[in-house]
C-alpha cells in the first residue's frame, strides 16, 4: 500500500467518526455533552483538512498512484 492510500484510509476513518459525532451532537439532550461533541467535530475538521492537503501533495509527488 502506498503512503497516499494509507493517508486516505485514515482520512476516511476520521470522516466516519465525524459522521457519528454529528449524529450524537444533534441527538443528545444535554447541552454540555452537545458542546463537547461539537468541539470534537471542529478539531476533527481541522485534521481532515490537513490530511486532504497532504493527500494532494502526495498525489502530486507520485502521480502514478493517483486514485489508489
Amino acid at each position: 500500500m502506498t503512503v497516499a492510500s494509507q493517508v486516505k484510509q485514515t482520512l476516511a476513518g476520521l470522516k466516519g467518526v465525524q459522521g457519528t459525532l454529528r449524529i450524537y451532537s444533534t441527538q443528545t439532550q444535554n447541552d454540555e455533552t452537545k458542546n463537547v461533541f461539537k468541539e470534537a467535530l471542529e478539531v476533527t475538521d481541522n485534521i481532515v483538512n490537513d490530511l486532504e492537503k497532504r493527500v494532494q501533495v502526495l498525489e502530486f509527488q507520485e502521480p502514478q498512484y493517483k486514485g489508489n
Partner: protein
Amino acid sequence: MQMWIQILLRAASLFFVTLFLIRLMGKRNISQITSFSFVSYIVIAVLAALISSNVITNLAYGFIALGTWTLFPIALDYLSIKSKLIHDFINGKEMVLIKHGKIMEESLLQARLTGEDLLRELRSNNAFSLADVEFAVMETTGDINVFLKSDKKPVTAHDLGQKVAPMTEPQTVILDGNVLNEPLAALGLNKEWLRIQLENTGVSLDNVFIGQVDSSGDLYLDLFDDSVELPQPKVKEMIYANIEQSQASLMTFALETKDENAKAMYLEDSEKLKQLMEKLKPYLLR
C-alpha cells in the same frame, strides 16, 4: 325503610366520603406519618365503620365527628408548614442517636429504643459494624437514618476525581409493542427516527416489549422473543476506537515521512487527537 337497605346506603355513601376525606388529608405514605397522624387515620376509620353499621344512629352527629377529625389534621398540617414552632410541637424533633461515632444512651432511652433495636436499624441501613457509623438520627416518623464515616462511604466518581458525562433519565418510547409518542417528543425525536433505528437492528415493532432511549439518544430494546440476541449499542465505543486508530496512524506517518513540514503537521494533529480523546473519554466510554 328496611334495615339492610339503610345500612347498604350508609355504607356505600361513607365508603366514598371516607375515600374523599383521606385523599384530602394528603399523599404521605402510611409508613412515613407520625404516630399522631396515624391515630387520626384510625379514628376516621372507626367513625366511618360505626356510622355505616348504624351504631351511631344520628347521621349528623357522626359526620360532625368525622369532619372534625379530618379538618383538624389538615389545619395542623398547614400551620406546621407555616411555622417551625408548631411543626416541632406537633411532629416532635428528630433525635440524634449516634454522634461522632458514639451512642447517646439518653437519647436512646427517650426514643424507647433498646441497643438491639438500634443495631437492627443500623443493619437495615447497611451499617453492620457500629465502628462504621459516624452519625445516626431518628426522624420524627421513627425512621433511623445513618451517616457513615467518610472512609466507609461508597466511592463516587467525584472521589475518584473522574469526570463523568451528565446523564438525564432515559425515556421509555416503546411499551408492549406500542410506540409512546409523548416521551419521543420530549427527546425531540419522532416515529420515523424510531422506525429507522428498528430497521437497523432488524426487529419489528410488535416484537419489542420495552424500548428505552437514553440521554445520548441510544435505543435499548427488550424483545418478547428472548432467543434473539440483540447487539447492544456500542457505537460510542466504536467512535473512540476509531479515533484512537487514526491517532496511531498519524503517529506512524509522522515517523515515516521525510518531509519536515508534513512531519510537524502529523505530529501536531496526532497531539490534537490525543487531547480530544482525553476530552471525549467520559462521554464515549462511561
